[in-house]
């Protein structure tokens, strides 16, 4: 989907760069937004605060880390999924936390998918590449909010 905006909430600059680069390598040329903590992405989505604000009528998909400053990924996910409009945004967890109770909690809160960031570089690249090819499917249909 060409007009899909990918919002990435990730406090680790190195991880963000790896993800951005590997999405690009799998032919994603969508707009990518970067948020360095949970509060920043919430302010953006809920059109609050002093930073950039979401425009109405766009399609978003969120890649969400769990361990972030200010507001963590669980709380971000919960806020999004409790909002009648924003709940339609697919949220894919992308996190180092590889623990079944974490996985369960996030799906229970309404995430679309849960991906663990592999420790080794090559596996990380492959995982993000498969995500990129999936997100670049022209048949993906994401609602506008």
């Amino acid at each position, binding site marked *: 989907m060409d007009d899909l905006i990918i919002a990435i909430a990730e406090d680790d600059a190195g991880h963000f760069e790896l993800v951005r680069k590997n999405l690009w390598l799998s032919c994603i040329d969508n707009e990518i937004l970067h948020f360095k903590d949970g509060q920043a992405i919430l302010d953006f989505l809920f059109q609050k605060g002093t930073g950039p604000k979401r425009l109405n009528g766009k399609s978003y998909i969120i890649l969400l880390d769990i361990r972030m400053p200010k507001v963590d990924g669980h709380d971000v996910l919960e806020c999004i999924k409790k909002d009648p409009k924003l709940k339609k945004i697919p949220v894919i967890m992308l996190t180092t936390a590889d623990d079944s109770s974490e996985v369960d909690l996030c*799906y229970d809160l309404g995430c679309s998918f849960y991906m663990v960031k592999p420790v080794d570089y090559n596996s990380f690249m492959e995982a993000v590449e*498969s*995500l990129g090819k999936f997100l670049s499917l022209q048949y993906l*249909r994401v609602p506008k909010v």
Partner: protein
Amino acid sequence: MEKNTAILIAESNQDHYQIIERNIKRAIIGEDIKRFDNGRALVEFLFTSERHPVSCVLVLDLDIEGFDGLEILRKIKSDSYLKKMPVIIFTAQQDQKKIDRCHELGCSIYISKPQEVAEFSDTVYKIGRFLLNVKVPILNSLLEN
């Protein structure tokens, strides 16, 4: 994806099912695939806890025979254990209201079926490769104790 994850495919169209099965198998070698060619069989399977697998992903065509696909999604996402199961909508229906409704009800993602066989195959293959890198929650309520 863990080894004991089953991929449930709810698809009434025999030709479509064959392409889906072939390409999922190509993408994810060794996975357990269960087919449901009608909605009633799927609902019975899911809501009888002794029979459904520990963890599964559902690929659901809204045009499934014998039961309204949206209603199946609603039932799954209203159930306190089944709601964690990722549901991928893969359907020919492209009505914007349906797409929105599926996301409101909590589908993981919505993908419209390509008309052309090579694109259909490629799309399913990319879904499969992506699922390889996804963690799937454990559903079986018996394990909660």
